[in-house]
């Protein structure tokens, strides 16, 4: 898979994690190159969120190896992941409901002036990026609990995009969005991809996967079914992998 001699941004090799008796992720290997979007697919409970949470530092793997830019990396907590320029949009969004959009966007990385957090500057920055991502967004001075699902999602997306990530993880980023907003996220993904970011995209809509992704990795019951180049397969091939848990015959070799 060493395409054009490029070093992969991310390599996860033989990664496993169990919770109690459940093998949530079982010897899974995936990788990601610069300027590439890799889709992660599978039924609910397949282990997609758990896999990417290992990369984002939320969970520690029991076995396996992570390499970033070809070098072995130790990611023990979310701070380590951020230090590797990995940004994540969690399925649960991970927003502090009682804080406003700017406080959430800069949470853990507040702008500080004279030892005090610079709320005005952070709000101004938030207004700038939201103006780009969701121009209709006006609720800057209320806790995010007062926002709609779509608005909350755009805050979570803004937080992942703002800090110049090299590796972006998006766990069902369009789950709470309407068709128009989904379209905007699709455009954002293309834009970021053109800037050379690598993106892991967990997405249920096969149509979106076929449109946005370069490759797709399918998981079932914690195991990797396989990884395919999207332009070599049909929707039905991928659906078959998700449901049957094996690669289609013409690719199996």
């Amino acid at each position, binding site marked *: 898979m060493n395409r054009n001699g490029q070093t992969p941004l991310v390599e996860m090799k033989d990664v496993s994690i169990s919770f109690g008796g459940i093998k949530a992720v079982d010897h899974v290997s995936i990788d990601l190159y610069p300027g590439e979007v890799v889709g992660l697919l599978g039924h609910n409970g397949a282990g997609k969120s758990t896999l990417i949470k290992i990369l984002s530092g939320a969970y520690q793997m029991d076995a396996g190896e992570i390499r970033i830019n070809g070098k072995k990396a130790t990611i023990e907590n979310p701070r380590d992941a951020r230090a590797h320029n990995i940004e994540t949009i969690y399925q649960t969004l991970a927003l502090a409901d*009682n*804080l406003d959009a700017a406080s959430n966007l800069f949470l*853990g990385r*507040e702008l500080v002036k004279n*030892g005090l*957090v610079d709320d005005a500057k952070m*709000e101004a920055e938030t207004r700038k990026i939201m103006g780009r991502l969701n121009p209709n967004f006006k609720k800057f001075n209320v*806790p995010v609990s007062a926002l709609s699902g779509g608005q909350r999602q755009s805050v979570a997306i803004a937080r992942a995009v703002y800090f110049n990530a090299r590796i972006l993880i998006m766990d069902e980023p369009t789950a709470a969005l309407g068709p128009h907003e989904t379209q905007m996220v699709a455009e954002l993904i293309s834009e970021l991809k053109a800037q050379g970011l690598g993106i892991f995209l967990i997405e249920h809509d096969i149509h979106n996967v076929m449109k946005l992704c370069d490759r797709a990795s399918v998981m079932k019951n914690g195991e990797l079914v396989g990884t395919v180049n999207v332009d070599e397969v049909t929707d039905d091939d991928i659906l078959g992998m998700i449901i049957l848990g094996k690669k289609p015959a013409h690719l199996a070799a």
Partner: protein
Amino acid sequence: MTDTAQAPGHSATKRSLIDVLELDIRLLGMLVAFFAIAVIFTIWTGGTFLIPRNIFNITVQTVPVAIMACGMVFVIVSRHIDLSVGSMLAMCSAVMAMMQAYWLPSLLGLEYGNPLILILTILIGLGAGTLMGAATGWLVGYQGIPSFIVTLGGLFIWRNVNWFTTNGQSVSLTDPNLLMFGGTEGVLGAPVSYALGVAASVVAVLVILAARKNKVGHGFTVKPMWAETAMMAVIVAAIMMFVTWLSRYPIPPSKLRRMFEARGETVPEGYTAMHGLPISVLILILVAVVMTVVARKTRFGRYIFAAGGNPDAAELSGINTRLLNVKIFALMGFLCGLAALIAQARLQSHGNDIGMLEELRVIAAAVIGGTALSGGVGTIYGAVLGALIMQSLQSGMAMVGVDTPFQNIIVGLVLIIAVWVDIIYRKRMGITK
């Protein structure tokens, strides 16, 4: 609620006065409750409730609970509880009392009244509180034991380690300097109090104007200048009235005579002096201001609120939530030490039951002040006001001859009603959290 609801300045004419002034409804409610209590007891006591001496006493009695309530806000906001604050207060008080009466004089051979005794006693007392709090925080943050359990244990443990520390004896404060934190023994007098009042007013006005300028600088809408001016006028008036009132409480002639005699002088004919601001109240104000700045303008404060709003989000944002817990409880312990210094100075001795049941008053003050037990919500000024409301209520009832058991029943009812009204208000406003 939609995106388009509030274009800036768009519907300004329709906004209510409360909106224009950007007043906090909860603060307003508490102020109304506070004034209602003041008015009722003023009428009931035929005016005695409002005389400077009584205001002075209520203020001084509020200080220890109010100081601890500031720390309790952080504890509760981060979804924890600290049931051990009364016992930690007792423990700090015991350590300080023993320090100044026995340990320091005998170990270091210091004379009574040596300022070094004062300084070391305070530092060690505050240090003891901080350590006890940090131990709690470590058990909660790093070992995952629920704070309810750790601090319930602490309530028993520190109360009784306190007993062993003093052998169950009361220890009177022999160091004369320590008494200045108690209230009537440590006052600044009228001129200094007025000067501080003016200084505080100037600072308040400057802070408001600076915040306004900062907002304008970033192109945000600000409230109209008349509203800003009105707010500043109210704040300045409140500060100056408070200072004036305390500066009208005269020091009794007998005490003046003793003070002069101590210096080998006699009181000049017609000489009077006023109490003015007590040092303990000054300390409370300082604590409240610092804690407010910490809550609103520091990363530490931001993380406390984030962890209370959504612990997972705080963790995933790279916040070291374990260490955060240690800091929160250590700060709580530090404030218990400070409260102990003031409480024992007011009583002029350390007794075994000092701070007994104080944890409940402290939690009640924070909760009456709008701190939500579900976490993520709370203000320092609310907690201070909550403590003040409880103390006013209790003092007022004592003045009109309500028996102590009945006083406590009323305070209990007020706690429940305050939270009840808050819940009804939230439901009405459609605020879920």
